[in-house]
Structure formats: C-alpha cells, structure tokens
C-alpha cells in the first residue's frame, strides 16, 4: 500500500490550523467535524437532562426536582435530542464527510451553502438554548396546543423560533446532497455502483427538503398564536387543536425516517465491510430506502388514534403503517442474509451493527404492535411508546452513529482507535440500553403514562431497574468519548484502508488530502466488489 504514514503529506487537517481557517472553511470534511463537535455537545446536554429525569423517577413521589422543572427537563431532552442531535448526527457529520468521497467528488455541490447550514444550525441552537436560559419551556417536544399556545407561560416563542431556524439547516444539507449525488459522481460511478449509504442519504435528503417546510409553517403558527393570540388552534375562536396535531405529525413522522434512514445506510456499509460480502439484494435494499421515504409521508395519523380523529381515518393510517414496515423488514432480512457465507469479524463497528439489527428489530416489531389499532389504544401515551421510540432512535440511530464513527475514525483522524476498548464499550452500551428501556415496555403495558413526574408505588420496581440500566448506559457513552479523544492525539497512525474495503472513500489517504483524492478517481467496479479488491491486492502483492 502506498500510504501508511500521513504526517509528512499535506492533508485536510494540517493544511491550515488557524481557528479562522476552520470557521470559514468550505471543505465538506471540516464542516463535518464542526457538526461533529456541535452534535456531541448537544447530546451531552440532552443526555444530562435524561439522567436527571431517571433520578427523579427512582421514587414514586416527586422529591429531587419540582414538577415544572421535571416538565422542562423532558421538554429540553426531547427538543435538543431530536433537532440538535438525532436529525443532524449522521447526515451532517458522516454524510457531509463521506458522501462526496464515496462518489469520487472533491466537495459537495454548494460548499458555501454547506457552511451556511452549520451557521444556521448554531443560530437555531442559540435560540433554543436561549429558551433554556430564559426559564425553559415545559410543553414537551411536541408543543401540543392549546397548552403551548394559551396555557404555558414558558419560553415557547424563543424555543419554537430555534426549531424554525434549525429546519433551514436541514433543508440546506438536503439540497446539497441531492444535487451532489445527481451531478458530481466520478466517471464510471453509476447509480448502482453507489454505496448504500449514499442511497439512504439520498432518500433521506428528499424527506428533509419536502417535510421540513411543514415544520417551519407549524411552529410559525404556534409562535403567532402564543405571541399574538390569533387563534389558529384555539377552539374558542373557531380554531382546531387537532389540526395542529395533523400538521405536526405530517412533519414529525417523516422526521423519524430522517433519523433512521441514514443510520440504515451506515449499517449496510458496516455489515458489508466486516463480513466481506456484497450487501444481499443491493437493488432491493436501495429501493427500500426510497419506498420508506415515500410511504413515510402517509402514516402520520397513527400518532392520533385516540386524539378524536375519525376511526375510519385511523383505520387507513393503521393499514399504511403495516405497509411501511415491509421495506424495513426487507432490510433486516437482507442484512442478515449478507452474513451468510461471509468472512465475519467482530470488530467494534460490526458489534454496533449487529446490536443495531437486534434493537431495530425490537423497535420495529413493537412499532407494528402500536400500528394495531385496539392495542395502541391501551398503550399509546404510556411508557410502551417511550420504550418503542427509544429502541428506534437511540437503540438504532445512536448505535449506527457510534458504529460509523468507529468505522470511519481512521479515515477522519488518520489514527486508529483502541479495538479492545471499542468492543468493550459497544457491549456495555448494548447491555445498558436494554436494561434501561426494556423495563419501560412493561411499565407501559401495566399502564404507566409518560411524562409523569410522580407515579403510583406499584411502578417503582421497574423504574428503579430502568434508572440502574441508565447508569450503565451513561458509562457506555462516556467511554468512547474518552478513548476516541485520546486516540486523536495518541492513537497509532492509520493506514489508508485499514478494513481493506473496496468502497471509494478508503482509496484515499488517511486523513484525506483537501481535495479528497490525489488524482480524480475513475470507477470501474461496484461499491462492494470484494473479488475485484482481492484481485487488485493479488496484483500488488505479486
């Protein structure tokens, strides 16, 4: 291999080191790093809020914090996790860094728009953090009316302004990815030679561009209602609170797929790389991403089965929710089939990927249970729903994010991470996650409503179990932060292609040069062509 040590060569990291060169960069890789630092910061804040909630719930009575503080904690946890971690985490960090490299481009189509998206993100975040500083917001991340518009005295306008603004950063990123993938593929990089990570981010970008404007309109209406009492959603002036729920979920259900589709793309890369197999049924997996993007727009009403929505509408939404499970199920089966007759190694990223499949399967199947109308009536708005969406959003998306961070860490930093520590933490996180959230399924079945600050004593045992699990999970999250930061400075130098992957981003040096490749690549084979890889290797060695 021609590139083992990168210290001597100019790369995107050492080409300039001033703060100004970072804050004014238009390099997609550096913007990815800016996003990385930002989303980890917000993950830590929102995670701390969750830890305080779990501590409060150790005892049935409210004792650690005041009820309004508890309500502000779960609101802050939800708002920050959803809009400032989950939605940007994989696309804006890993997508930004690797989509151009995977398609053989020098950068995204609109590098300045890319930098603008990060600044817009930060301005939105400042508003939302401003809401926290000015006393917090207690509406829940769903901002349900008329509570948010007429009854809450908290910083609703500032917080929703933050969400309004951060939406534009999603739209900018989405536009950039769509144009980049259409127009900037290297010679020979046909659509069906693209890595599946690119496909899933393409599908995801379509959702971001189409759904986010609805969110902007919705939170704008809340802001107007709250600040000027116009009454779009106020029944006493002819408004309709259910209309709000339709608008909110018309964005927020697709937003669930914004959080999961890029994660699915990561998993396809990891499963393939560590089983040294072409992803089973490549085209079916690619098109299932587009199917999820399309169907995801048609199921929002399944959040509203007990809202007062017509039972006939609920029946249609229930049916469509069973349909949207199909492309996800296909992916799970195809990932599993990819392992068949592969050469499987259990490196850290693979442990995260396998953990993802397990947790996503539980999250998906409980999703099908929730789509079943009469059962949903019993468990909606209980801890069963809380457990379900954490299996999808944390169990799946955070596992994929961490798996991807380990997989691409050598490329991003030019350093290796400590494998044993990586494997150990991956197992701790898997165990801690299940101990935290599995008891919550049972709590929900037993009838404990969500967003309860105090609860009847019979729910205590399971709440204690969940809090105990959360403390293990917290250790699992802190460990990678420590050893990965350590590795940035002290890790062993990474070779250009430590995993021997045929995908294009690994054909560059680690860390890559500013323009990604020393020479513009010409693509002659598929993303997962391990046979070609072995031949090329043989030719080099021979």
């Amino acid at each position: 291999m021609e590139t083992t040590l990168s210290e001597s060569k100019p790369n995107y990291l050492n080409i300039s080191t001033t703060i100004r060169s970072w804050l004014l960069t238009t390099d997609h890789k550096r913007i990815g790093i800016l996003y990385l630092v930002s989303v980890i910061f917000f993950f830590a804040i929102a995670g701390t809020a969750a830890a305080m909630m779990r501590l409060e719930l150790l005892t049935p009575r409210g004792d650690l914090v005041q009820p309004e503080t508890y309500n502000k904690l779960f609101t802050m946890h939800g708002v920050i996790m959803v809009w400032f971690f989950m939605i940007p985490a994989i696309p804006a960090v890993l997508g930004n860094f690797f989509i151009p490299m995977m398609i053989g481009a020098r950068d995204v189509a609109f590098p300045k728009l890319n930098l603008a998206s990060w600044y817009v993100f930060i301005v939105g975040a400042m508003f939302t953090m401003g809401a926290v500083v000015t006393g917090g917001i207690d509406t829940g991340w769903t901002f349900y009316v008329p509570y948010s518009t007429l009854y809450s005295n908290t910083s609703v306008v500032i917080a929703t302004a933050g969400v309004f603004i951060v939406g534009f950063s999603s739209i900018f990123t989405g536009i950039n990815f769509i144009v980049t993938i259409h127009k900037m593929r290297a010679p020979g990089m046909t659509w069906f030679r693209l890595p599946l990570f690119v496909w899933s981010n393409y599908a995801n970008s379509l959702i971001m561009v189409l759904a986010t404007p609805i969110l902007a309109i919705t939170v704008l209406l809340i802001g107007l209602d709250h600040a000027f009492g116009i009454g779009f959603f106020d029944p006493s002036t002819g408004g309709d609170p259910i209309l709000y729920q339709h608008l909110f979920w018309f964005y927020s259900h697709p937003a669930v797929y914004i959080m999961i589709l890029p994660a699915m793309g990561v998993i396809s890369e990891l499963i393939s790389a560590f089983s040294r197999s072409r992803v089973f049924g490549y085209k079916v997996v690619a098109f299932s991403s587009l199917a999820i993007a399309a169907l995801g727009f048609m199921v929002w009403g399944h959040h509203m089965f007990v809202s007062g929505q017509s039972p006939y509408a609920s029946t249609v939404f229930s049916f469509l929710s069973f349909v949207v499970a199909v492309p996800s199920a296909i992916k799970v089966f195809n990932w599993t089939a990819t392992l068949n007759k592969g050469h499987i190694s259990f490196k850290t990223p693979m442990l995260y990927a396998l953990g993802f499949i397990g947790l996503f399967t539980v999250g998906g199947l409980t999703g099908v249970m929730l789509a079943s109308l009469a059962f949903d009536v019993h468990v909606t708005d209980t801890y069963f729903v809380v457990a379900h969406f954490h299996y999808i959003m944390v169990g799946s998306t955070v596992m994929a994010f961490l798996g991807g961070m380990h997989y691409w860490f050598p490329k991003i930093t030019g350093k290796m991470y400590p494998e044993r520590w990586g494997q150990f933490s991956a197992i701790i996180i898997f165990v801690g996650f299940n101990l935290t959230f599995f008891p919550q399924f049972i709590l929900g079945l037993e009838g404990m409503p969500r967003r309860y600050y105090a609860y009847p004593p019979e729910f205590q045992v399971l709440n204690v179990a969940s809090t105990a699990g959360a403390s293990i999970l917290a250790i699992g999250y802190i460990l990678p932060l420590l050893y990965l930061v350590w590795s940035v400075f002290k890790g062993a130098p990474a070779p250009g292609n430590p995993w021997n992957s045929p995908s294009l981003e690994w054909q560059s040096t680690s860390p890559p040069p500013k323009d990604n490749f020393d020479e513009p690549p010409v693509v002659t084979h598929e993303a997962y062509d391990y046979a070609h890889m072995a031949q090329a290797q043989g030719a080099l060695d021979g």
Partner: protein
Amino acid sequence: MTGFNPLPPQASTMAVQVDALFYVLLGLSVFFILLIAGLILYFGLRYREGSKADRSGKRDGNLRLEFFWAAVPFVISLSVFYWAGSLFFTDHSPPPNTIDVYVVGKQWMWKVEHTNGYREINEMHVPVGRPVRLIMTSQDVIHSFYVPAFRIKQDVLPGRTTELWFQPTKPGTYHLFCAEYCGMGHSAMIGDIVVMTQVDYETWLNLGGAEAQAGMSPGEQLANQLGCLSCHKLDGSGVGPSWSGLFGSQVTLESGQTVTADEAYIKESILDPNAKIVAGFQPVMPDFAGQINDTQLTDLMDYIKSLAQSQ
C-alpha cells in the same frame, strides 16, 4: 397474585379481547426476534473470519426469496390489522342502554357528573356488568381519559365532545390516569374508577352519591368524595399540606410570611388555592369556586376543625 403479569388487571369486556390480541402480537414478535437473532448467531459463528466452513455458492441476492420474506410477514400482519381494526370499531360502538356519565377534564382534576345530578371529583362509581358511556369535554387543554384495567383511552378536547364506553366485569377500584400531558399537575390528575356490585351501586345511589360510610361526618364524606384527602393525606405524605392539626396553627407561606389558619384562610384556600401557597408545596390544587355550595363549605370547615385536636 400468582406469578408475574405484565398486564394490569382485566376488568372490562374489552380488556379480555385486547389481551388476546397482545399475546398474539407478542408471540409473532418473539418468533421474528428469535429467528433474526438465531440466524445472526449461526452465521456469525459458522462464517467467522478464518473458519473453514464451505462458502461456495454464495449469492448476492435472490429476488424470489426476498419477495417471500417480504410477503409472508405482510400477509400475516394483515390478519392482525383486521383483528385489531375490528376491535377498535367495537371501541367506538357503544351498545344501546348505556349508563351515561358526563366527564369534564380541567387542569388538574376530573369532574364527573351522573345523569341524576350526582357529582364526583377524581372518582367515578359505576356498576359491574352494565355498559357505561362517557361523554367528555375539556375546560382548558387536551387531557386523556385512561383506565389501564379497562384497556381504554380517549383524548378529551376543549371545544368538542368525545365519547368512550366500557363494560366493567369485576368489582374493584381501578386507576384513572390523565394520559395526555397537560401541564404542571399532569401526574396528579389521577383518580379512581370504583366498580361496585349492582347492590352496592343501588345503595350508593340511594345514599345520594356517597358510599355507605357509617359514622362519618358530612364533612369527612365530602372530603372523600371530592378527593381532598388523596392529596391532603392526614399522615402528611401527600402532595398537599396535611389537615391534621391544621386549624388554628401558624402556617408559613412560600413568600416567607406566616398566617394563622383561621376560617377565612381555609375558605380562601378552598375557593382560590393559589392565593396563598404553603412553603414547600406546589400550586397544583384546582380551585373549587363554583364547585361546592356554602353548606358543603361549612361541612368541610367543620371537618377540618375537628382534625385540629386529633394530633
């Protein structure tokens, strides 16, 4: 209680049917989880890096197989869809001859009114074996009427009426929860559904909406009926200050002031509870202005006075 049961008591006709649906869903889910986990373990061990297992004939895809594993679970799930959907329509189709009860949700209490004019707060008495229909609305934000033991839930909205029906099958006292987040006192917006035998229910009706409570003063009965004592627990463990030894004592307020708990103070605290907040407590009590008449106020006052010496 024999063994561990992940579900609450089954106390309505709907509960039995929803639980059957749940166990089928659970069985299907466990089957698929074991299938996927088993395959991953099997492939992971057999085809681990460096193993000598035969890998010839590896395929990159198989459309027929992929169609099969998409279609079969989907067809199975459609029967679940149909089953759950029909039950849902049962949920929405009350039988004739229901006992109608009016429910008003308000931050943070459930007001219940029976057709004969009896009123209850955070409590609802119903007979076993008769279908009950609730006609519900909200005075402020969205609430949700949830009785886990009946497996039913319905949001309660301002500006419109929603309905819910159930038929209790077992006498007992069951949790009533507000399941839609409604602000600071959301988790305190809870109550009891008291399912009584026909005989007890008749007695309850004849006593004017009070349980047969021999030896209780009118004030004590009222305090039970209005749910006062569920927060103002006499042992001091409730979310509101205890009434025990309250009357005539010095009360320290959140503002740092001290007031004497005289009749004027107690009357104000019932009708306008947020006027003076006792130090260490939250302003979560709903106001009772217009909910109780002067006689009832006097009865409550007498009861609170009678507790002054008991400690």
